[in-house]
């Protein structure tokens, strides 16, 4: 549970980073002319679409991890329990990926150019703007769904974490925690508007980077150290997030 809490915090902090891109979308989604209730509904639908995509990606990544580690067949709870070799390798890879992402958040790594395969992602992003103006309840929902698929280092990090859990369900839970973590800021963006000091955004990015770094280190450790799991499990008072 503690791990999911960390992920939630990372998602929350990271979402200040998201404000750069997704926040712009949320703002553009704007207010509904039919009043406050309609506006809230609009943004809830948008975020629900986004969350669904994240959850789905998490489940998918977890299932993928499971396929890789299928020799054992049994899934392990997040950050604990004994691991077999395949799971160790997966954990190390995922952890390294997360650390790389975290370093990128700190600006210590050059931006990985076009991490996502360019296959239609940019045209999709461009044409999605058409949905923002479209009337009806379905448009923000669809918009959220596509939004979730847009390339984003934060999402990649947690998808990697989800894959390292080597199970569809834990993977799903990982991404759910992350997605829920992004809720407050994104809702805030939509409701309150765009007034958030850049300094705060920077702090959010740092905090998110720290969380991801920590999770990445623990994940790598899980792969390398036989007893790291126990340490993680027995860490008193949760994580120093």
């Amino acid at each position, binding site marked *: 549970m503690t791990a999911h809490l960390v992920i939630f915090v990372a998602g929350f902090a990271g979402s200040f980073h998201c404000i750069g891109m997704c926040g712009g979308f949320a703002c553009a989604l704007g207010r509904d002319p039919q009043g406050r209730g309609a506006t809230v509904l609009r943004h809830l639908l948008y975020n629900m679409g986004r969350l669904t*995509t994240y959850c*789905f990606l998490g489940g998918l990544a977890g299932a993928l991890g499971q396929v890789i580690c299928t020799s054992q067949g049994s899934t392990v709870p997040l950050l604990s329990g004994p691991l077999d070799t395949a799971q160790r390798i997966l954990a190390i890879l995922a952890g390294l990926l997360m650390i790389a992402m975290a370093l990128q958040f700190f600006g210590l790594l050059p931006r990985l150019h076009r991490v996502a395969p360019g296959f239609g992602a940019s045209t999709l992003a461009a044409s*999605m703007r*058409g*949905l923002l*103006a479209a009337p009806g309840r379905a448009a923000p929902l669809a918009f959220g*769904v596509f939004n979730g698929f847009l390339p984003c280092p934060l999402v990649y990090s947690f998808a990697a974490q989800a894959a390292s859990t080597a199970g*569809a369900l834990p993977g*799903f839970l990982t991404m759910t925690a992350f997605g829920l973590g992004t809720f407050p800021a994104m809702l805030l963006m939509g409701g309150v508007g765009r007034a958030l000091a850049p300094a705060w955004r920077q702090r959010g990015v740092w905090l998110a980077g720290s969380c991801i770094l920590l999770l990445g280190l623990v994940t790598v450790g899980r792969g390398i150290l036989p007893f790291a799991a126990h340490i993680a499990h027995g860490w008193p008072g949760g994580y120093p997030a």
Partner: protein
Amino acid sequence: MTGQDHALCSHCLLPVGRRAMRRTVNGEACAFCCYGCCIAYQIKSGKTEEWEAAWLLIRLGVGGFLSMNIMLFSLLLYTDPFNGADAAMLPWIHLLLWLLATPAVIILGGPFLRETWFHAVQGRLTSSALIVLGVGAAYLYSAFAVIEHSPKVYFDTASMVLMLFTVGYYLDAAGRARAARDLQPLLAAESEWATVVNGDGEYRRPVREVGRSMLVRVRPGERIPVDGVIKEGESHIDEAVITGESRQIAKGVGSDVIAGSINLDGPLLIQSSGVADATRWAQICQSVRDALSRRSPSQRLADTIVSIFVPIILVLGVGTSVYWAQHLPFDRALLIGLAVLVVACPCAVGLAAPMATSLGIGRLARHGCLVRDPATLEVLARMRLIAFDKTGTLTSGRARVVAIDSDGTNADEVLARAAGLERHSEHGLARAVTAAAAARGLQPVAIRDVRVVAGRGIRGSSDGRTVAAGSAALMHELGWSLVPDLAERGRSREASGHSVIYVGWGERVHAVLSLDDTPLPEARATVEALRHRGVRVTLLTGDLPAAAQRIAAAVGIESGDIEAGLAPRAKCAALDWRRHDHGLVAMVGDGLNDAPVLVGADVGIAVGSATDLARETASVVLPLGGLWTLPWVIDVARAVRTTILTNLMWAFGYNLVAVGLAMVGLLQPVLAAAVMAGSSIVVVLNSLRLERLPDPSPMSEQQSVAEAERAPAPRSAAVAVIAGQVIQRG
């Protein structure tokens, strides 16, 4: 790309064939080759304010939302079965899944169902029928399962298969758009717009409305829409489309520019010198459009296979279900049958050839090399023997005065008189003589009463004396004396394949001019490059054997591979004879006087005359002076063929293995759908590798030759050579 043109897919520019889907996007009628292109095109070009494009996205988004939720709930069911006290929840969850799945299947499956229906009305079974049948079976079974409270439902399978297919088609089409991006400008000649400048401002006009001597503004990065002359500005220009060579050429006020070339870095004001739709650029575009909409034999074969493939798979799928139903529970058997239907979509087979050929044709066209149809590319890749015509193909086709033998008279005097006569003639040799005189700065002697003696030469009078230039027969007719030494020289020159002009005045022959054709500087490197590619090179010419031998030696064709003195009909026979030994043969000519031979070859390659493509005499046309591109063209053709073969091998191999696995029950339907979507993306990616072929580079091909050719020197310096070779006899 115009609305009326429905032979090509509006999105990926591949031929739509009989698979066409028709839609109206942005108020324009469009045709698409598949559902994926339909989605991708609307996503890409649908105007955002247009409801239709947004509606498509909304449908896909909501469909995705629903099916992802179904998947997540099903995940819950799979990992944590409701047992014990929670068992009562199970039917409710199933009901919820049903509620989610029904709109999802309707939204995502609608297009497939519609396509199946349209095709069924036309009496055809296509791959969408497989999807509809498979998904429909899974959905209906699950619906009954909900009603009957049975423990298993497969809504997730139904919706995920649909979603994967939709996404797969979209990615597929998005990849193909990269190919279209390269082809697009090649099809746009007529529909392009030009900025016309007149007294009171600038107007955007369709290119076909640009008339002679109108002023056109061309900004940096734009394609020059019309042939013309630069009136203002200077810039670098890339004329690859016309010359084959991608190179920056500096142009300024007064320079000619050609339609289709690209203005690289400076704004230009151009005065049009002709009508826009009569440019070579327009011809290129037309020929590319024609080539793209034709189908190759291998493509027709693939299409036939696809059309019998679908019913076979239907039978196999149903058969598999029936077979397994005797050994396994019905729902498992149904899923196995579904996997067979879903995994065997023949999309990859259908896509194997057209994308590769389109990329190849577009690639060639961007360097001015035109191909009549995809079949030509295939033949070009397979042929192992190229026959060259000599004059105008391996040689410049323009005669040059290479030697002047005289009886002691000054060579300049001879040339001045000869030029005075020959400037009244249109004959090719005559022009060579006047050019030689002009190059030496000689003033042609004024000659009156000029008369052309048909087939013999030309005569006139100057200072009351008769002057004549022409064959030995003409001199003989005039009864003029010829020094035996000079006569001997003339004969030996003639015997070695030179064209000879006797020049005389005052009742006497004073000199013999020897003229010869010169090999093109790039000919030798081209022949070498062809041989390097395993292509045998021969020379078939109507000229004298001696002349043929000399040119052959100069360009590096072995003497055993020469046939000279051939009439056009004999050339055809010679080609036929070689076809016996070498299979497919190609013939390269200038397209002017060897049209019948070009038609007779398996591939007729004309250098420089684009009209041949329209006249169907040649099936490949190289740019003017573009002989050097020939090895590259063959490279491209071979790369295209390799790509098609690997694509087909992959597509068939994949289908065999995947259908086999699915029939044994080793493939989950959802996994099958993912694999299937991936398979056509593999074909697209494999075809896109063609984009990475190197450009043709005249430099590397010609470098060796440039050294060797420095001695005979370029044409303008011919005079210096003549002066050196003049033999004065006294």
